[in-house]
């Protein structure tokens, strides 16, 4: 069974069909998905902008990260569940959609970025102290994250323009 078959099977399940055929289910889930951007990407951006030394300069980076991270995870769960339901109902169309494929690739990269960041430069966050300035590699991680998440939003919106 390849990926296309999996998508076709998902598409044909009763839940996928129910979401697709209900007049209100898809718009409601999509609205949740769009507004969930604020919780996921909004909080990620604020951490990134702190890494760049642009906002919350009076707060230590570790303070901002540890306090905002639970909210980001919350946003991630909302986005993943709502996004998966949207995909479920249109899996067959999503499979061949270039914007959807690009989005998944970007999501993978956006997931790798904090993994690398947290296991390398962030380990020494205690030595950054209270200074507004951060190491260049931390700034780089911030810029990459902002770019990736922006591209994810853009490609996500673009899914609707490819039929």
């Amino acid at each position, binding site marked *: 069974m390849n990926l296309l078959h999996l998508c076709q099977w998902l598409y044909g399940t009763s839940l996928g069909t129910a979401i697709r055929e209900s007049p209100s289910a898809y718009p409601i889930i999509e609205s949740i998905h769009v507004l969930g951007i*604020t919780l996921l990407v909004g909080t990620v951006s604020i951490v990134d902008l702190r890494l760049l030394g642009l906002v919350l300069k009076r707060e230590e980076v570790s303070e901002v990260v540890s306090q905002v991270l639970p909210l980001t995870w919350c946003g991630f769960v909302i986005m993943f569940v709502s996004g998966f339901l949207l995909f479920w109902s249109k899996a067959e169309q999503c499979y061949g959609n270039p914007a959807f494929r690009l989005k998944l690739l970007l999501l993978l990269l956006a997931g790798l970025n904090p993994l690398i960041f947290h296991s390398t430069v962030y380990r020494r966050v205690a030595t950054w102290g209270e200074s507004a300035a951060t190491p260049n590699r931390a700034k780089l991680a911030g810029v990459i994250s902002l770019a990736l998440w922006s591209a994810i939003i853009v490609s996500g919106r673009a899914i609707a323009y490819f039929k």
Partner: protein
Amino acid sequence: MTVLSVFQWLGHTAVGRAMQHSTYGVAIVEMVHLLALALLGGTILLVDLRLFGVGLKRQPASGLAQELAPLFWGSFAVIVLSGLIILSAEPMKCYYNTAFRAKMAILFVALLFHFTLHRDAVAATKQRNSTVWAKSAAAVSLTLWLAVGLAGRAIGFL
């Protein structure tokens, strides 16, 4: 001068005409509108959650709001400007769209609340944190902004 005539004028401006004749114009400006939503919504969310006592707890909401003010105003400017450009592309569709009308009405209330009672509630956290007053202001604010977002998304569904 009626609202209708302002909308008609918007559609006849150079920007409006350019948007109406462009293939990708609306799509691109819509993406910018969404990016600004992430930042503006994120900023509002962090301050309101702080009023609830969730999130950035080590600093009072007043300090947080002050530090995030440039982000709020920056993303607010982008979202209003991109919104106006999208509006100029299809002013008549928006004028008769129930969701658009609802969005504008709720947006007006949200802004009014944000710059009066909400601002007072945030400023009051300098003295005392997490009062019932602060939590109610956060609840009303989140509800209003959420409704603005929902109505905004609904414009495309009607």
